[in-house]
């Protein structure tokens, strides 16, 4: 039940895109149509779900003071985390291409893009600062990915409808996307009052 709480919390209340501004570059660049946003969103859930437990293992068993080297190696954290993310993205791309060409075609160019999506590295760094254990970090990864997926689908759908509206020329495109995301953020802020722990107590 604790894990479900973490999932809900990371997906809705502490949404990576709308509460922490993570992954905004690809969020704004790839949200012009729902179809491409869907592909990128799926790829983010996938990669966050995989890299989060791996980075947890590296952080606890290799870098921590109780790890195999018995020394505090946390200054290597950034380099190792980003190397894991870059190589996992590469590996996932190869595996998906081999076993599921249809999924590969739908994810396509989005997989390499994810390496520089800060939601992935940010998720791993938040996992460290929140001191989650292994199963909690899996739930946090999947929940964070799901929240990001929801956010990008929502903005893409709104931007598709926006084409039929009469927006001032200087505000078209990027400016409007910023204002819309701000409004979506306000809507998501209303979820902040929810306390997931209260569900388990009842």
């Amino acid at each position, binding site marked *: 039940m604790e894990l479900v709480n973490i999932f809900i919390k990371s997906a809705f209340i502490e949404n990576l895109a*709308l*509460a*922490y*501004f*993570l*992954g*905004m*570059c690809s969020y*704004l*660049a790839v949200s012009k149509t729902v179809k491409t946003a869907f592909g990128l969103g799926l790829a983010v859930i996938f990669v966050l779900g995989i890299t989060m437990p791996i980075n947890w293992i590296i952080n606890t068993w290799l870098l921590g003071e109780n790890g195999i080297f018995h020394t505090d190696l946390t*200054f290597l*954290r*950034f*380099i190792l985390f*980003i*190397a894991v993310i*870059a*190589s996992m993205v590469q590996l996932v791309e190869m595996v998906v291409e081999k076993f599921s060409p249809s999924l590969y075609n739908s994810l396509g160019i989005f997989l*390499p893009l994810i*390496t*520089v*999506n*800060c939601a*992935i*590295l*940010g998720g791993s*760094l*938040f996992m460290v*600062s929140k001191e989650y254990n292994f199963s909690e970090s899996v739930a946090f990864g999947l929940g964070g990915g799901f929240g990001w997926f929801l956010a990008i689908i929502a903005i893409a759908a709104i931007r598709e409808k926006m084409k039929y509206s009469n927006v*001032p*020329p*200087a*505000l*078209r*495109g*990027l*400016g*409007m*996307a*910023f*204002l819309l*995301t*701000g*409004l979506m*953020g*306000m809507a998501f*802020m209303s979820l902040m009052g929810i306390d997931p722990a209260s569900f388990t107590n009842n």
Partner: protein
Amino acid sequence: MAETTIAKEKTSILPFGPTERKLLTDPLNDNNPITVQVLGICSALAVTTLLNKAIVMAVAVTFVTAFSNLIISALRNSIPKQVRMIVQLVIVAFLVTVVELSLKAINYPIYKELSVFIGLIITNCIVMGRLEAFAMANKPWRSFLDGIGNGVGYGVILIAVASIRELFGKGSLLNFKIIGPSSDFLIDTDAISFLNWYEPNNLMVLFPSAMFVIGVLIWVQRAWNKKLVDIS
């Protein structure tokens, strides 16, 4: 353009002509990393609640873009194409670790407040974007200038957004109270002053207002600089 600059580079090791000046000034307006190239938004939004955080972040990003551009540009002919992303990321991660550890030593409270966002400079798209778009194809000195230009262009927007958010959200600038009931300029707190009518608006320090402020900045910039208007 390439031919003219080669002739110039023979005369001096570190030339500074119109091309070089353009590398520094272009990112301030016509090719601004945040409002035009849409790079590095994540950190730009998160660290702009206070002006001092934004200034530290601007300096850190300028340092990383300048030196990663310089190093990658010096190595550009010896990096194999297939692994270039990993090589770039490792060099950027090294520079960010340097920044992180120095900041931890120099100013610990700011380091705590910026938390994960210093680490996220690694995946700041400005750094990767400039490496891919500029440093892989240009000489080290020019790449260095391009890095500084883009870092400063990013910093200018960051400082502008942070000033607006801190002034209206907390009534202060650099933690010095300017407007609002507790203003440091007020000698007699009972006196009715033009400074104490303002009640700080908490929404300005929350997520949505960062989006609105940057959205409006983009609107203003494009209304004034017509060639940036999105035609599609």
